[in-house]
């Protein structure tokens, strides 16, 4: 059988960066093919070439056995290639139907296209379990459904090959399961799926074949059934990695953070955090699990002083933080690694040394009086980079040019470096490669062992389970319960879905 996609000798450079080195890859029709690799391994570049965002310097693309010139995403779509991006390309105020038709209106009037799209959507919903209300406003849909709209868009345009870039990063475990069922059905109908991901477990569960990339090279393509997580992880990073963090028992001391009856409301006056109370002690990590969007972000921002609580108390060693602002929260000893590092954690248009003082730019040692001296600013950045193994260790490089993992290390170095009493961390390893994940986890455990109090919010249940000493599960703004780390995944999953199942 001819392969659906063949990439032959693809080579691509960006300036001095050799992003793809002579990559040759063949993807069988009607299969699910995973591509794994660290950040910066070249997966996204390769897929961008296939989808026409970039043009390869060398190499050929063949679609269904025939040479194809893919110069733009329109070419790719014409060849039956569809892509679901990590960050969705949807018009939020439009309905599902309008989004699906967007760019495929076929004429001046939109009516006929909408009618056609409606019946097509019904068929797709039947065939692939892709149920979405065609008249719902996309912006009001949960992330999982928005992703389905993206898949529908691609299928509506006649995609035979579907590329999914980190599709489960934003999904709940249930939504992810559903996604994989959908992918399975697509495969059964003869479609080809390319899955780009960091998550080896998903690769093992969902794919038929898997290719590993490292530093622009395609190292190996294996049948998933013939390989193991450990083997893939080793291929990816080139050495054995610890998937489970080693840690001793916690030695909790006195209470550092005490949250009492906290209520945080959004602009529409809806309680996003609904009457929450908990403690965090010295030397322990309290993990807050939950599907994203259930109030964890608001809780973190309230502690950090960014959002003002509607009522309740946030006490840090006796100081009430409820009325404070982020500057005061920092002065009192709170360090905050924000959930969305591109959005809040650093300024991508600043060089690394300037991002490395964000929030701490009033430190007296960075310059006398009103001045901000370059020498101490750069020195501090260099020190943080050395300590956290940031690559490249160049304080003058633009923050945007670091990979996700290295950006996160810059932020961690900044926040941990100020010797805080309490560290609040949101999604510390989202979009971070395995090598950096291990490093970041180790640093968090070290901090705990130095007697710091840590609040960890993550949508990765694995991360919560391997790092936390206690787990709180949030659902719809409230804490559903506290569990210890030995609680099995299924029970936590139920709590995350709002189902309380007290152990009998």
């Amino acid at each position, binding site marked *: 059988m001819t392969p659906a996609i063949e990439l032959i000798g693809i080579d691509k*450079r*960006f*300036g*001095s*960066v050799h*992003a793809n080195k002579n990559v040759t890859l063949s993807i069988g029709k009607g299969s699910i093919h995973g591509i794994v690799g660290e*950040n*910066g*391994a*070249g997966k*996204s*570049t390769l897929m*961008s070439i296939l989808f026409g965002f*970039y043009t390869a310097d060398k190499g050929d693309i063949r679609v269904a056995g025939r040479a194809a010139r893919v110069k733009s995403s329109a070419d790719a779509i014409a060849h039956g290639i569809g892509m679901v991006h990590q960050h969705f390309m949807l018009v939020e105020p439009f309905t599902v139907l309008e989004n699906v038709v967007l760019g495929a209106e076929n004429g001046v009037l939109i009516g006929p296209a909408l009618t056609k799209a409606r019946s097509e959507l019904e068929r797709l919903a039947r065939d692939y379990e892709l149920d979405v209300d065609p008249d719902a406003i996309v912006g009001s849909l949960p992330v999982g459904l928005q992703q389905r709209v993206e898949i529908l868009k691609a299928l509506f345009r006649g995609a035979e090959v579907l590329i999914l870039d980190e599709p489960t990063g934003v999904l709940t475990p249930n939504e992810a399961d559903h996604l994989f069922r959908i992918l399975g059905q697509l495969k059964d109908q003869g479609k080809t799926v390319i899955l780009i991901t960091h998550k080896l477990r998903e690769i093992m569960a969902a794919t038929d074949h898997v290719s590993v990339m490292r530093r622009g090279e395609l190292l190996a393509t294996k049948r998933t059934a013939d390989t193991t997580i450990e083997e893939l992880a080793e291929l990816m990073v080139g050495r054995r990695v610890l998937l489970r963090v080693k840690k001793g028992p916690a030695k909790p001391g006195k209470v550092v953070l005490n949250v009492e009856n906290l209520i945080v409301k959004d602009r529409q006056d809806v309680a996003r955090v609904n009457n929450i109370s908990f403690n965090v002690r010295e030397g322990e990590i309290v993990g807050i699990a939950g599907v994203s969007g259930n109030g964890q972000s608001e809780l973190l921002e309230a502690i*950090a*002083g*960014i959002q003002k609580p509607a009522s309740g108390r946030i006490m840090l060693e006796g100081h009430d933080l409820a009325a404070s*602002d*982020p*500057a*005061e*929260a*920092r002065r009192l000893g709170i360090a*905050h690694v*924000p959930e969305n590092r591109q*959005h*809040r*954690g*650093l*300024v*991508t*248009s*600043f060089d690394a040394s*300037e991002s490395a*003082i*964000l*929030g701490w*730019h*009033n430190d007296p040692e*960075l*310059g006398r009086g*009103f*001045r*901000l*001296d*370059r020498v101490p600013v750069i020195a501090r950045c260099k020190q943080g980079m050395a300590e956290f193994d940031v690559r490249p260790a160049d304080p003058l490089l633009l923050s945007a*040019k670091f*990979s996700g993992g290295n950006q996160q290390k810059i932020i961690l170095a900044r926040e941990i470096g100020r010797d805080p009493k309490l560290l609040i961390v949101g999604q510390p390893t989202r979009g971070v490669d395995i090598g950096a994940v291990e490093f970041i986890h180790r640093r968090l455990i070290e901090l705990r062992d130095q007697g710091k109090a840590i609040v960890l919010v993550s949508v990765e249940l694995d991360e919560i389970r391997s790092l936390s000493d206690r787990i709180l599960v949030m659902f719809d703004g409230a804490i559903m319960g506290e569990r210890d780390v030995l609680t099995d995944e299924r029970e936590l999953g139920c709590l995350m879905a709002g189902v309380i199942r007290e152990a009998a």
Partner: protein
Amino acid sequence: MASPRGELPAWVDIAVIPLLNLTLALLVAGLVVIVIGESPLEALGILLNGAVGSLKGWGYLLYYATNFTFTGLAVAVAFHAGLFNIGGEGQIYIAGLGAGVVGLGLSILPWPLVLPLAILACMAFGAGWAFIPAYLQAKRGSHIVITTIMFNYIAASLMVYVIINVFRPVGRMAVESREITSAVMPSFREIGLWLGIKLPNTPLNATVFLAVIAAWGLWYLLWRTRLGYEIRTVGANVDAAIYAGIRPSRIIIIAMLISGGLAGLMAVNEILGVQHRLVLEFAGGAGFVGIAVALMGRSHPVGVVLAAMLFGLLYQGGTELSFAKPAITREMIVVIQGLVILFMGALEQAFRPWLAPLFVRQEA
């Protein structure tokens, strides 16, 4: 990994692209001149000779450049805070009021005392006029583009009223104040006489040094102080600024006060340096030219000074050209200036895609 498309070496960005854009602007302008029936090369020669061919030309060029530097810096500092200050024109105009109030009201004070006071008054009045839109933006969310435009009109009407009803000497027909005699910026001709050098009579005065100091000062503020860091953070990423404990509303107001103060300095050049009296419409559109200057100078003080000099050249050379070639009217000069703005501002990035392969390949 995936670096932004069309990454170019820094020198291409700084030198090649602006030069290419300028050349294209001149080529298109040349076509316009041909259509009128004049020789474009001759016109270019007159333009350049008129601006940089004599000391007098240079004097005018630098005088215009002084105005545009102040207004360009004013727009640039607001840009860095993520604000679009279109109100330079009104802020300059109101700053003239400061010059008039101090220059005429405190004229009994000696020169070394009254001149600095008058300069400070210009800055304070310009800043004060910028404060109201800034406050409305920061606290009420009124869009600063709209409010500053409206404040230009209010300033224009207010100044007509004030000059006619307050400053105009009784019985005088001309709509202008009486002469400011004490708070006066020495002209280059006077400075030359002190030094025993004979310089041509041009509007160039000591304010040009103030413009250089202002450019350096703004650079220092933005890149070497904590306040400048906060301003740039708010402009680059408001969410990150809030995370960092910076209050955007406070920075919006401060940045606009600085912006208005810088715009106000143009009144020093015009009122204290050249006119020596409060006159109508003395801002003459320089507040708007400042937007083009800031765009072209990429909001960097060095770029702003260079762009201001380019516009000074076009203003002065253009005036000479319209004298020498009656077929090329003032309006044609405006068209040529417009083309320069179009190619260097609006189409600044248009030729990058063509340049990218030329330079990126070489490096790889």
